[in-house]
């Protein structure tokens, strides 16, 4: 699968490069990853350097994003908090991807009662508003970073299960799957080697879109005090803390809010562009053209 996978992804990358919105989103994501990896090293000040002499200073050259009510540098805290957001996004979407793809694969491949049971469970999860469900799970498990990640992962599992199942349903009817059965291949082998690679495109798109939602959910949970616990910086928590100073110190809420906004926007831009580029119908059309020509 490497060669074709390469040529498919190469084609996808070339098409992405021509889309200015996708490039913009990509650049923001790169900056975000740099901030996440090297945030504490890039930060001009320590995140917990309390200094009562410079409380609530407006943005200046010394403190581009200003300082908060304890005199901490907002820029530094925003930079360091990027790591938390990325971590939550990656881990929670990772959980959702693993669980959702597994459930969707089995449901779609075996169909019948297993499909019914699994997908009805997914429907139940899906029926709850995302945040309500996440709050309920955190309430049961207790607040904190890791429970927030688990909760967000559970909340986004159904969407991956559905996307996977839909892909499996169409791929399993393909002749090459029957051909694999005819060689004596086991179900697991067929799922791993034939079904999964052929439904990768919609899963990649769903992953990038879900990263945006997961980061937003973490911000919301932190805002509600159910996610990252202070003094550890998190964008949602900073937004919450800044809300009391909206009229006096707008920068407390503005910069973490802008960070959330830009991150979610970037993931959405890239996700939408990927969807256009990896659209299975477009792939079949272009491949059909290649075959005809």
């Amino acid at each position, binding site marked *: *699968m*490497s*060669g*074709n*996978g390469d*040529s498919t992804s190469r084609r996808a990358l070339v098409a992405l490069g021509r889309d200015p919105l996708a490039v913009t989103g990509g650049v923001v994501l790169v900056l975000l990853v740099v901030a996440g990896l090297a945030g504490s090293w890039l930060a001009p000040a320590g995140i917990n350097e309390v200094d009562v002499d410079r409380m609530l200073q407006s943005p200046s050259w010394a403190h581009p994003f200003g300082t908060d009510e304890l005199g901490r540098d907002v820029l530094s805290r925003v930079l360091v908090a990027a790591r938390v957001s990325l971590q939550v996004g990656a881990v929670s979407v990772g959980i959702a991807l693993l669980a959702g793809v597994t459930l969707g694969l089995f449901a779609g491949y075996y169909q019948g009662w297993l499909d019914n049971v699994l997908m009805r469970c997914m429907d139940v999860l899906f029926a709850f508003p995302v945040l309500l469900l996440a709050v309920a799970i955190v309430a049961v498990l207790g607040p904190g970073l890791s429970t927030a990640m688990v909760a967000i992962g559970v909340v986004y599992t159904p969407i991956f299960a559905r996307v996977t199942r839909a892909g499996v349903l169409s791929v399993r009817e*393909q*002749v*090459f799957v*029957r*051909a*694999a*059965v*005819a*060689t*004596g*291949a*086991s179900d697991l*082998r067929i799922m791993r*080697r*034939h079904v999964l*690679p*052929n439904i990768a495109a919609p899963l990649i798109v769903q992953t990038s879109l879900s990263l945006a939602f997961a980061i937003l959910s973490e911000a919301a949970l932190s805002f509600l005090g159910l996610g990252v616990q202070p003094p550890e910086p998190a964008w949602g928590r900073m937004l919450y803390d800044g809300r009391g100073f909206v009229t006096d110190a707008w920068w407390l809420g503005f910069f973490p809010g802008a960070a959330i906004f830009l991150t979610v926007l970037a993931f959405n831009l890239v996700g939408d562009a990927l969807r256009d580029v990896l659209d299975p119908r477009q792939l079949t059309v272009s*491949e059909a053209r*290649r*075959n005809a020509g």
Partner: protein
Amino acid sequence: MTGESVATDAVAELTDLAVWFPTPAGVVHAVDGVSLTVRRGETLGLVGESGSGKSTTGLALLRLVEPTAGTVQVAGQDVTRWSRRRLRRLRRRVAMVFQDPQASLDPRHTVGASIAEPLAVHRLAASGAARRDRVAELLDLVGLRRDLAERHPHELSGGQRQRVGIARALAGEPDLIVLDEPIASLDLSVQAQIMNLLRGLQRELGLTYLFIAHDLAAVEHMSDQVAVMYLGRIVESGTPAQIWREPAHPYTAALLSAVPVADPPVQRGRQRIILAGDVPSPIDPPTGCRFRTRCPQARPDCAQTDPVLVEIGSGHQAACLFAGEAVRAMRAQPVNASSP
């Protein structure tokens, strides 16, 4: 019951096979009482229109469809009730080549990976190097360059793809290869090459084929035995010479008249038998003889009695109450036979 009834040279034997599919509209009688024997080193040509059940019969040999009734025996063993685990062994013994080589190859796998799949599944190669060697050997066998192993199906021509499909079928050294219309979706010029390849491989490796086709022309030069199917039943079987020279079932005669002859005067002088209407629904097959609704020679008896296959010559069988006679009458009375 393992194997008593199997002749020593029979690679595969179907006995009274029935395959029914329940659908919302009713039960589809795709295969309804088919018995046939494929002998080692021979080719059995299985011919019929779409919907005749010929492909389902082929799939039943690999247990890719569940038999409703009857038995499937392969290499002397009754595999009708084999468990899923044991079925994997059956699917090494019986391999399959599909009609559409493009659809039957995973677009994300290289040619080499596709050919090596049976080797991987049945652990037939001790190492990666051994597997690559075997793939190269198989590519040689089917007349493809070795470096094509790194390519993907979309980079190949239709004929090359079908060669890959054949190489994959050969990989596990099966006792029987089911060829499900292997040339039907190929260009005419390529069809001949693939037929020659299949014949050459059979000679070289002593292969046994079940060759499924929708017209008699495709199987004429390839088959040792021919069986003609209509609506889930075998209506006539025999050697190609018997079928060609003296078809005994009106349906066979109609199929034969559709085969063009590459000799204009002969072709012009020939009597075409054009069957009226479509194949009836296999959900609700006609009473009596299943062919009577389209048979130019149908008589009142045909609605009453369901004809069984009877021996009308050495190894030549037909399921028609008026075997032979009906065909002679058809050929003598063209007016009855042709319809718009």
